[in-house]
Each structure stands twice: as structure tokens, then as C-alpha cells.
């Protein structure tokens, strides 16, 4: 299946793309997606380390390594700094 992963803020700017489509086996997990991102963006892999990034699935921040299914919306972004 193809999972679209969205990027925001410093991650988006550093990579120069808003999203990437990853081809992954079904089902997959957040950690497998993180590992795929390490490979895809090897020079920027530190951006995806847990201390540098939050993960949202279907627009909710998740902290567990949950399973990801087709049509789930996945996003990686830096810790938030609004307000």
C-alpha cells in the first residue's frame, strides 16, 4: 500500500517537500514508517528521531507504535511552538 506522510515546519523546510508517498507492506506501523523515512532522507535522518519529531495519525498526536492502515493520514513535525 502507499502511505502519504505529511511534513511541517522545520522538517518540511529542511527536506524541501510537503509530503512523501511511501510504498509499504500491509499492515505497517509508525516505527516502520520512521525507518523508511530514515532511508529515504538519509542525510536528514536526525529530523525523524523521536526527540526531534512528533507523529500524528489521523490528526492526533500518538506516542505508541500503532499500526497504520491504508487511508490513514500520517504526519511528522517538530515539537509545537504556537501561542
Amino acid at each position, binding site marked *: 500500500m502507499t502511505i502519504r506522510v*505529511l511534513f*511541517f*515546519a*522545520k522538517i518540511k*523546510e529542511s527536506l524541501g517537500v510537503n509530503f512523501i508517498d511511501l510504498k509499504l507492506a500491509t499492515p505497517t506501523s509508525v516505527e516502520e514508517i520512521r525507518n523508511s523515512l530514515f532511508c529515504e532522507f538519509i542525510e536528514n535522518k536526525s529530523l525523524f528521531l523521536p526527540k526531534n519529531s512528533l507523529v*500524528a495519525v489521523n*490528526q*492526533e*498526536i500518538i506516542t505508541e507504535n500503532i499500526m497504520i492502515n491504508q487511508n490513514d493520514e500520517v*504526519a511528522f*513535525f*517538530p*515539537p*509545537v*511552538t*504556537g*501561542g
Partner: protein
Amino acid sequence: MIKIKIQNDDFSLNDEYYFLTKNSPSSGAVVNFIGRVREFSEQDNVTGLMLEHYPGMTEKSLAKIIDTAKARWSLERVSVIHRIGKLSLEDNIVYVGVSSAHREAAFEACCFIMDYLKTEAPFWKKEITPDGEIWVEARAKDHRAREHWNTASQKKP
């Protein structure tokens, strides 16, 4: 009643006060918070900010924060407005307004909503200085402020 807005334009305090109080004789207290662009932050020569957010998730996140506040305090109305895009020194960034029967609930809920907004709502700030642009890093102080609510009493004034 709840109002959540993400917008480029500035907001009007008069309009928000009207939203919070019109035909609401039970609202004895209104608390407003406004966050502004300040000249010193990560850098000491900030001239402006660029604010980005995650459309869709931002609104959901703010709605959840407000629902949690409404479950904890007796609130009449809540308005949250966050600006995005390019902002200059002294511009308004964020507005949180809360009305309630009594001031204690309004003060506490306003503070609670800001503490959670700063640590959970998907906004990101980039500071603009004469020397370049720098993404703001998340601060431990903001996370401690939010954690305080987990240990504070759960009473409902």
C-alpha cells in the same frame, strides 16, 4: 458557545467581547488573553515571526482542549483565535477569551487553554531577525506549565 478561528488577519477585542457577552446575563466574568510578537525570544533582535500550522489538525486539537476545559470548569463561552503567516513586532498572535459566571473559573480556564495550546496545538513559529530566520525550539517551561494542571485540584468552581 465555542469559536475557533485560524486566520491571517488581526482580531478585534471588541468583537470578541461582544461574542462572549451578547445575550448572556449569566456571564459575570470575562477573561481575555492576548499573546503578542515580542522583540526578544530565542534571539534578542526579533523583527517578526512566520507562523505555520497543520490545517484540520489545528482546529481539532483546539476543540479538544476547549472541551477538556469545559468539562473541568463551568464556562459560558470560549473564543480562541490564532493568527498565521507573517507577523511583525508588536502584532497580536493569539487570543483566548473565556466567559463564566465567576472569575475564578474564567481565569483558570483561560490559563489552562493557553498552556495546552502552547504544547499541543500544531503551530510552529519561525523568528525573523536581521541576521536570518530561525525556527523556535519548544521550551521545557511550557511543558511544566501544562503538567501543573495534572496535579492541580480537579474542582469545578
